[in-house]
């Protein structure tokens, strides 16, 4: 079980209160998301290079709505504001926190239940400060701490796009947070501490490409919201920028430039392929939340924007991860040989049996799929995560990707395998194909299911 989730859970009820007391200290202590880069920043207006904000050149003369569409995708609004299988942007998506669930809101132009009545100023406040027209505070599940870097122009283009959508009547769902997390007033303190309300400032010492990438990564794609660990106040800890974190039952891996645990050893073309198609040879298929990011957001980026994004991500300093190095060699062809034989030797053959029946046909006993590189387990980060968080989630939910075209999907076994069986097969495959076998229990899997559940 990942330490991250346990830690967040263990913080218990006191966290926000503690934060409130420690506001002053934390504000100075937390570096900004781009503070790692050498060189100082300048206000956008003072920046001499090509504009790092807005839409790509080819779209500059497109209509406001078209531009807004590109930016809304770059900012990945759709995934969080849509229930799987539901009306786009109508809200209701659950963020399962250890202390209750938060539901996303309807951002279609419906006047009663959506944002139809929002003025520009109200929209900007909501997106960049987390303040609703009635003055109440949004939970930082809405990444206003990142969107705060968005320009007025870009945010309003997104608004124009959203306003062009068909209105959907969909009342908000009540959050299920317990005390003190249900005390919205405290959120003001949180914002004061962690959300700088500050627009993007380019760094003249970095390349124009880097600056574009920074804007895309921080103001739009908000990569850090998942990939950067949070501090005790649940704010992003940029001292460990992109070092990986666990959210809603999924592990967002280390994407700092650390060698094995991060993306330091990835070829640039692999990284580009992964971001744009959700798959790269020997790195597996993006699944879960990252798969959605690719499907609904990153795949729409122009090649130049992708390149800029990659350049920026690669510049983030290495933070050593807490995961063991990946195993890059295939497991033996016989089920009898290899690390998992030890597991089998313990007398518990449940995982091996499930693997034999439901998994070996695609993934092979070697972990190198004879059918598709996309189904190769060997060398993927998730299979080498002894927490097996994503492995368990993928077994439960499968992989249903929209890109690349005709990629193999993995069926969801969550309906036919019980929690104990999911744990058994996850423990088996991490032992057989990864660096270290996981020790998931039935209860762990039950918790993972509830964290990722959408209901």
């Amino acid at each position, binding site marked *: 079980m990942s330490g991250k989730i346990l830690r967040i859970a263990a913080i218990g009820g006191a966290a926000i209160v503690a934060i409130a007391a420690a506001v002053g200290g934390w504000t100075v202590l937390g570096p900004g998301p781009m503070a790692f880069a050498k060189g100082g920043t300048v206000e956008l207006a003072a920046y001499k290079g090509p504009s790092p904000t807005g839409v790509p050149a080819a779209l500059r003369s497109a209509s406001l709505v078209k531009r807004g569409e590109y930016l809304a995708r770059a900012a990945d609004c759709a995934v969080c504001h849509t229930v799987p299988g539901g009306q786009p942007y109508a809200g209701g998506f659950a963020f399962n926190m250890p202390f209750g669930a938060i539901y996303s809101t309807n951002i279609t132009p419906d006047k009663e239940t959506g944002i139809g009545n929002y003025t520009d100023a109200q929209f900007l406040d909501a997106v960049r400060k987390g303040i609703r027209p009635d003055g109440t505070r949004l939970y930082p599940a809405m990444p206003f701490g990142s969107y705060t870097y968005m320009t007025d122009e870009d945010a309003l283009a997104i608004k124009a796009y959203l306003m062009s959508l068909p209105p959907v009547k969909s009342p908000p769902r009540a959050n299920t947070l317990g005390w003190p997390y249900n005390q919205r007033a405290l959120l003001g303190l949180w914002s004061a501490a962690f959300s700088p309300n500050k627009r993007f400032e380019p760094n003249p010492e970095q390349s124009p490409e880097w600056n574009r990438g920074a804007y895309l990564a921080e103001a739009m794609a908000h990569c850090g919201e998942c990939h950067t660990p949070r501090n005790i106040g649940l704010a992003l800890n940029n001292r460990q920028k992109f070092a990986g974190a666990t959210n809603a039952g999924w592990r967002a891996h280390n994407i700092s430039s650390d060698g094995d645990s991060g993306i330091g050893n990835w070829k640039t073309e692999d990284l580009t392929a992964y971001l744009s198609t959700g798959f790269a040879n020997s790195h597996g298929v993006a699944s879960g939340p990252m798969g959605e990011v690719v499907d609904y957001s990153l795949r729409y980026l122009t090649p130049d924007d992708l390149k800029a994004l990659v350049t920026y991500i690669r510049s983030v300093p290495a933070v050593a991860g807490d995961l063991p190095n990946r195993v890059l060699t295939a497991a033996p062809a016989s*089920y*009898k040989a290899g690390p998992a034989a030890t597991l089998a030797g313990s007398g518990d053959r449940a995982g091996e*049996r499930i693997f034999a029946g439901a998994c070996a046909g695609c993934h092979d006993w070697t972990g190198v799929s004879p*059918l598709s590189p996309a189904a190769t387990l060997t060398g993927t980060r998730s299979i080498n995560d002894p927490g097996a968080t994503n492995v368990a989630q993928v077994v439960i939910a499968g992989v249903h990707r929209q890109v690349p075209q005709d990629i*193999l999907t993995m069926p969801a076994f969550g309906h036919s395998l019980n929690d104990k069986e999911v744990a058994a097969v996850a423990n088996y495959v991490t032992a057989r194909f990864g660096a270290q076998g996981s020790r998931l229990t039935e209860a762990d899997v039950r918790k993972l299911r509830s964290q990722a559940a959408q209901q």
Partner: protein
Amino acid sequence: MKGTLQVNGVAHDVEAPDDMPLLWVLRDMLGMTGTKYGCGIAQCGACTVHLDGKPVRSCLLPVSAVGDKPVVTIEGVGTTPAGAKAQKAWIELDVPQCGYCQSGQIMSASALLANTPAPTDADIDAAMAGNICRCGTYLRIRAAIKRAAGTQA
């Protein structure tokens, strides 16, 4: 892809989309219907063929990935020693019921027998668990494998 497929020792010229699974090339292009479609998602094993001697699920194997590796199907497996033994044992023990899964069962079993001449129960489980039989012929499949291996009368 446009090229040659080696199936049961015979070269076939094939022109098919790259991502077309071998299963459908065999069935719908070469008219070799012994290999069956059961699920299309590598869950049932009905489509099992040998690719370079290894059992693979042809329903998800893109024909472009076959290359010049030899393919053996149920129509040709009888010419291999293990395949012939399996088929004989299958007949002697009247394994099949509806028979629809049995091409795949025999392909998996003959691959097992070729690599593991005297398979244990655990070996049989590992090799055969990917093949579903809705008619429930599992007891006889196990017995037939042992008979083919000469480890059980």
